[in-house]
């Protein structure tokens, strides 16, 4: 087992364990903390896959933006003084049947397909190719996403505003 494999197993274990705790823990703040670890694990795996730009963007957007917003949601929707942040699970049996079927399908696909297993040369930095693609080939989608974000901003502000 070389260093590369070891790093992969470390981040994979981090991701799996923390993702599991996100959905099983009763305390929302613990769930948020575990989600933080999951995002870190995924970012680490991005780095291993040679996607350094995406790893950093994952940290900036998911950890720095989305998860903080969720923590805000937790803190603003639970009474501050009597901390009521515990939640229960329900529909466990029907959910496990459905999920079991789904997992079976996924595993079958994983085993049946012949994956191409020779990794391409990992470039030293993906920054330049991604920037070129975003500004040339995908420029229109890029601008559309900017408009989408603007609409989301206005929408969020108007939904959450007090009348």
């Amino acid at each position, binding site marked *: 087992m070389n260093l590369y494999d070891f790093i992969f197993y470390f981040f994979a274990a981090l991701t799996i364990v923390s*993702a599991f705790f996100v959905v099983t823990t009763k305390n929302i703040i613990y769930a948020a903390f575990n989600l933080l670890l999951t995002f870190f694990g995924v970012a680490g*795996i991005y780095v291993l*896959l040679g996607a350094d730009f995406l790893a950093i963007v994952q940290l900036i957007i998911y950890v720095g933006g989305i998860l903080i917003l969720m923590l805000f949601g937790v803190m603003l929707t639970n009474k501050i003084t009597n901390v009521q942040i515990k939640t229960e699970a329900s529909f466990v049996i029907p959910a496990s049947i459905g999920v079991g079927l789904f997992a079976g399908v996924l595993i079958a696909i994983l085993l049946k397909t012949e994956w191409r297993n020779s990794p391409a040369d990992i470039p030293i930095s993906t920054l330049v190719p991604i920037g070129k693609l975003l500004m040339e080939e995908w420029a229109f989608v890029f601008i559309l996403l900017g408009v989408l*974000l603007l609409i*989301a901003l206005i929408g969020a502000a108007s939904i959450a505003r007090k009348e």
Partner: protein
Amino acid sequence: MIPIEYYLSLSAFMFIVGVVGVLTRRNAIIVFMSIELMLNSANLTLVAFSSYLGNPIGQIFVFFVMTVAAAEAAIGLAIIISLFRNKKTVNIDEINILKW
């Protein structure tokens, strides 16, 4: 060298955990977190394929998914906050009327 199946299994596991979360948890914020888990697993698959095929377009797609996820988080949180303001709960089973 790690074969691509490992990355895909990891991503499948994350997706399944996300589905379990959406199906069994009743707190809107936890459901929201589970959706993020599912989005992340899809992203992981895309990055793995992009890296193994040597094609950066997969990463562009992940970038787009992240942008949409950010927009979704902003709107979702606004909805949760205004729901809480009106109904004093974030349990999605208690939010069961179509009209206020």
